């Protein structure tokens, strides 16, 4: 909307533009309110400084013509709250609640203090021999809709890619499915966003968003095949709800 967020941090996924729109919308709304309220506060402080011989007025604030000064802003806030709620739910629905059909599915496993990413490989199907597992390295194709299946082996972790404006906690004993669609090639940070012990700060990974040719070249170079951790069930979870609890 005003390009503030894009300036601070690149928007590298479809959800990033959505979330940033909401942040900037709220920024404009509450920014105006904040300036108005501070303006009135400071105006009153200067306007009604103590002057010799001038006595303060006696106002109870309980008469109708007095308390309208509180009730009108009160109702205006209600209106703006409704606007913010509508956009918040709309964007939340699109990013978290609604799960578009995936082109590929990856698995993300957190443990103290590293991330394991399982890429589906050339056949684009997880659980086959050509899966590629990488530690702290996630390789994505630009313009592809990914589902991720997220879990943890030990404590809570959190899957967070700031450039995607995406975050989801990983919980031991659950597999949480979500989605994202990278839109811009580049290298991005991947942070653990939930305190997970003394190595929390080194639980960092790299996300490489590549075009199809580069991605395939990288896949060609991957020789090792891995066996999936046995705590993953064969079938994915309820596909309609991104983060359905067990």
């Amino acid at each position, binding site marked *: 909307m005003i390009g503030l967020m894009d300036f601070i941090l690149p928007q590298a996924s479809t959800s990033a533009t959505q979330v940033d729109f909401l942040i900037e919308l709220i920024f404009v709304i509450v920014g105006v309110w904040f300036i108005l309220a501070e303006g009135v506060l400071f105006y009153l402080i200067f306007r009604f400084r103590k002057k010799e011989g001038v006595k303060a007025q006696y106002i109870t*604030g309980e008469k109708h013509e007095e308390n309208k000064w509180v009730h009108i802003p*009160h109702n205006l806030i209600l209106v703006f709250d409704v606007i913010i709620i509508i956009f918040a739910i709309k964007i939340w629905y699109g990013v978290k609640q609604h799960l578009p059909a995936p082109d590929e599915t990856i698995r993300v496993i957190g443990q103290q203090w590293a991330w394991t990413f399982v890429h589906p490989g050339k056949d684009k199907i997880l659980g086959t021999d050509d899966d590629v597992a990488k530690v702290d390295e996630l390789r994505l194709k630009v313009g592809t809709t990914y589902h991720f299946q997220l879990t943890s082996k030990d404590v809570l972790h959190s899957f967070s890619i700031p450039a995607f404006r995406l975050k989801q906690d990983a919980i031991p004993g659950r597999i949480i499915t979500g989605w994202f669609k990278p839109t811009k090639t580049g290298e991005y940070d991947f942070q653990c966003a939930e305190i997970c012990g003394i190595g929390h700060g080194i639980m960092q990974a790299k996300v490489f968003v590549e075009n199809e040719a580069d991605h395939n070249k990288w896949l060609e170079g991957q020789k090792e095949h891995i066996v999936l951790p046995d705590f993953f069930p064969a079938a994915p979870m309820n596909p309609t709800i991104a983060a359905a609890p067990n």
Partner: protein
Amino acid sequence: MSAHHEMSFWQKYVFSTDHKVIGMQYMFTGMIMALIGGYMSYAFRMQLAFPGHEVPLFGLVTFAKYSALSTNHGTIMIFWVAMPVLIAALGNFLIPLMIGCDDMVFPRVNRLSYQIFLLSAIILLISLALPGGGFGGAWTSYPPLSVEQQYNLTPYANFLWLLAVALEIVAFLLGGINFITTVMNARAPGMKMFDIPIVVWMIVIASILFMASVGPLVAGSVMLMMDQTIGTGFFDASRGGDPILWQHLFWFFGHPEVYVVLLPAMGIVAEIITTFSRKKMFGYKTVFYTTVATAIISFFVWAHHQFVAGIDPRMANIFTVTTMIISIPIAEMVFVYIATLWGGSIRLTTPMLFALSFLASFLMGGVTGIFLGATGADIFLHDTYFVIAHFHYTFFPIAIIAVFAAIYYWFPKMFGRMMNETLGQIHFWGTFISFNLIFLPLFYSGLAGTHRRIADYRGFPELYPHPNATEILPSQWAQDMQVIATYAMLVLIAFQIVFLVNFFWSLFKGKKAEANPWQANSLEWQAPSPPPHGNFPPDNMPTVYRGPYEYSVPGRELDYWPQNEPPAATA
């Protein structure tokens, strides 16, 4: 309480049942804990600004130490500074004086409350010194990290930390019972419900809120302790438990807790802005009802801390609605406070400056909360420095600015001496400006994607510029912001020396205070400064004839009208 015989030092200051002495015990304990909590923030902020360097007066901040410091900083500042000073110290000192009685109705329960509180503080401090160091699983203490020693690597501190918090809660339950019972039963003759000063109402409502919300946390703490010690599996997914359950129990308490400390701060500000603008409160009943509304709604917003924690995403929609709704009574309360200034005769004394700056900075805390309460935006902002900046813009005004306002305002009543006004003004400007310079930059760090509880950002190229970089990206300014914040914090700490000097100098050498130096209405100012044991002369207990905010009443020569002055005696 009729016989006021001579007492030994121990009876008078250590095992006293006098509400004022217990209030002071809470206040000084809270001040000492604030110094410890502040020292912790000094150490970890230095690490953030200058990662990997030895911190003067601390040493190297390792990852384990960083986690322990930030965890215990948060725990101490909320449970051992904000709670004891705002509720216990001011509640104990002010309630009997402001409602015109001689003491709390359960003085021995009151003493027990402080003793348990002191024990809890000692346990917490011991936990920092044991092998493995202090607990480092954040003040929210989420399992499984807080349960399993193999994960948190603090074999003693994880249990002792929890025990200390649980004991602290017991102490405040005892204190809260006392506050509510006293205000309901021991008010001076003639003091009707709407003649009670707002700060007293706020402390009572906060105590009710605390008692109603803390049950699930106590239950959860016991479950967590059992998971830690005797091997139950309430929060262990591999044995049928659920780690998310703790988050619900914690935040069901944790969010009302924000209002538990906010309300007394709002009460303090109400007393001070009415006194120093010589104005009646604009809509006393509006303040009362919005407070009650806030307290009720605060029970229905807790899951906004858990939007991305793995709750059903449909549930988030409900909590974003309730969270937006709670902004309405809080905003209304702030509007009422601002409206109170209209037509006043404002004196910018030190307590008034602190009270007004509370409003100015709490507004920032309030509006930034909207970003986090909106589900869609919270997906990104959750657990970033934006959250840190946001809640410090609420907690710093509450626990520091409002408390300074209260100390400068009630110091003459507490100790019978005036504080130095010039030093007070220097302290105010130093504190207020440096506080903003600490936390405004951190909003930017958060928007650039800096996540919390990480000791060293050098591994994140988006946030920390490479030493040989020729071009700095906007997101890499996040690190410069950390440096600015750290320098501002050093300035903030330096200005607190001005306060300590003023406080202790005035305590012994300050100008003698008269009973009512601010010409205020409420009953505490009608007692001598400092009030003796029993507060008011036993044969002349106050009777109340009017509300506490009758300032500048038309037709009266004086611009104040004490609550206990008989109507016939016109000045």
